[in-house]
């Protein structure tokens, strides 16, 4: 198998990808690119089309329309070479029951045609040496996820596809997985990560693609995404009773009422807070709660879709 690496080729180039299941369009005209060494996140709730998109990149599903290039190669022409050069962590990682962690890794070294010693290397890399001879069925969720990552590392992939690698993990296990991903990113591996945790996308990725109902709504670096909105700060005021007079000030870009309160959007907190406090005092408003924050991805997502990022996931949970 030829593994000649061509410099300056995009790790991933997806153009106008469409995936339909009957009349349902799961992925609708998605285009994106990932440079070598770059990490991107596909952020969106369950059912946004993230996994379907990633599975098309992984070669598990075929797009209805569009073109995918991985490291300058296509699934139609160079499937085996792509498989040899990418690493993947599927959304659901299951392993053969009565097989040990090491045996599982050794099996995959034969698939990737790498020395068995790579199994030991991967074990160390994901900190699973102590579980080397345990059956995979006896691993915890976090350990299973780390094993899945270890499998993805056996071939030193140039592009790593991680489909919700921390979903269902406790905070400690999640942080462990994050550390591994951070290290991989440092070593120059291009990463495509799907997640519905904004913190994960923010901490691990250079660029974020916000996906909803099969479409990419917005993309860019964290800074670019936040800067795309004219406001940067949000103040939620919860109060008792009725407002006699509304708060009008040049710092307020817009305001929105919600049951029991009102939300103010402003450029900066320091511009809105002093006049707002004065207005509250003057109008003798009985405050129940006052929540001030800088704009975050969750707010942005809500603004774009009318839904909270984790709303659907919570419902499903």
């Amino acid at each position, binding site marked *: 198998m030829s593994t000649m690496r061509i410099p300056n080729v995009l790790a991933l180039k997806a153009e106008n990808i469409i995936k339909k299941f009957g009349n349902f369009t799961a992925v609708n005209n998605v285009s994106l690119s990932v440079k070598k060494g770059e990490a991107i996140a596909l952020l969106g709730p369950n059912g946004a089309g993230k996994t379907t998109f990633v599975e098309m990149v992984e070669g598990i599903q075929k797009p209805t329309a569009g073109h995918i290039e991985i490291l300058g190669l296509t699934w139609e022409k160079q499937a085996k070479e792509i*498989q040899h050069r990418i690493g993947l962590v599927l959304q*659901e990682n*299951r392993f053969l029951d*009565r097989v040990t962690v090491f045996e599982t890794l*050794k*099996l995959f070294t*034969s698939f*990737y045609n790498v020395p068995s010693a790579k199994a030991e290397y991967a074990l160390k890399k994901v900190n699973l040496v102590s579980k080397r001879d345990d059956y995979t069925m006896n691993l915890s969720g976090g350990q299973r996820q780390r094993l899945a990552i270890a*499998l993805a590392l056996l071939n030193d992939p140039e592009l790593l596809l991680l489909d919700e690698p921390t979903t269902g993990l406790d905070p400690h296990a999640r942080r462990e997985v994050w550390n591994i991903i951070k290290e991989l990113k440092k070593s120059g591996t291009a990463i495509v990560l799907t997640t519905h945790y904004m913190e994960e996308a923010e901490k691990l990725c250079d660029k974020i693609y916000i996906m909803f109902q099969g479409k990419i709504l917005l993309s860019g670096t964290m800074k670019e995404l936040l800067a795309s909105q004219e406001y940067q700060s949000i103040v939620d005021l919860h109060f008792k009773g009725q407002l006699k007079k509304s708060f009008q000030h040049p710092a307020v870009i817009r305001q929105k009422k919600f049951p029991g309160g009102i939300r103010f959007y402003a450029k900066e907190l320091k511009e809105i807070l002093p006049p707002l406090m004065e207005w509250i005092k003057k109008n003798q408003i009985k405050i129940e709660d006052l929540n001030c924050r800088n704009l975050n991805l969750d707010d942005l997502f809500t603004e774009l879709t009318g839904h909270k990022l984790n709303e659907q996931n919570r419902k499903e949970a």
Partner: protein
Amino acid sequence: MQILREIYQLVTIQIKQFYRQPGVLFWAFIFPLAMAWILGVAFTTESKTHYKIAWIVPESIRKPTRLKQFEKKLASSSVQVVWIPESQKEKAWKLYRKQKVVLVMQWQNQKWHFYYDTRLQEAKLLHLEIERKWTHFLTGTKESPPSSVPIQGTRYIDFLLPGLIAMGIMNSLMWGMSWTLIELRMKKLLRRMSASPMSKPGFMLSFYISRMMITAVETLILFVFGKWYFNLTLTGSWLGFFLIFLAGNFAFAGIGVLVASRTDNSRIGNGLINAVTFPMTVASGIFFSYERFPEMAQKFVAILPLTLLSDATRLLFNEGGTLSAILMPATALILYGIIFGAVGLKIYKWH
């Protein structure tokens, strides 16, 4: 070389998974042995069948000495007589109705009259046997005892065990390979493997090899048990047996791949495997000869993979079958494997 390494790793893992499950070990090794033992002992061990018959005799016979002598003669052939006086003959019918006696005989006008349901083979045969004995008794001539056939392979176990070996091969491949493939898809275990550069034909080949190794042990256990307990021998070609064993495994591996090619539902998988194995187990003459089927059906049954395999195995065990004698069934089995396997692989759902 890479593919050999892959196959070696896959076979190793599959064998390990097999022996790490004690429950599977029971079904694979102990159950066929127990079945061979139970059926072999039940149908092969010599046992005398005892019959009871009722005699209705007129009270006018005061000293039925001759009849008493005949009764003794029958007793030596395991036929027990219940004497009933003519005045109480209702008693005889009562015994017959309750199936306490196989037939009823009435002594009338110096000769025997036989009463029984003429549809019953057992009663019919007993009638002929008693009549023959009565003639010899009257004429005083001696019966010529039958001699047993001076050839091997005529016991039920000689018929059964090669059939069980064939059935073992079928079940091992259908449940061990086909079901495992369905389970792998069902549990989404196949997904990760198939997304790697793993060779797909190599993956299938590894299943064929690992199952064949397990089936070889199963067959060997059955064979050794048959030899030790029932003195069963392979009278034909060992090479022929090896060839038919490989061909049988190959045929059912192909069928197994086709059966497992699409479904990811355990109930459908179960149903599909049963739909293949059950009719063949019944029709292919594993437990009883398929010669009892109508002639038209026999032609169809004879070309079923399990029939080809069990007939060829019996030929080798009991009739001294040569290598050339099993070339035809072996070729047919290999063709089954190629055709079903190719179709199965073509439509195989890897994700």
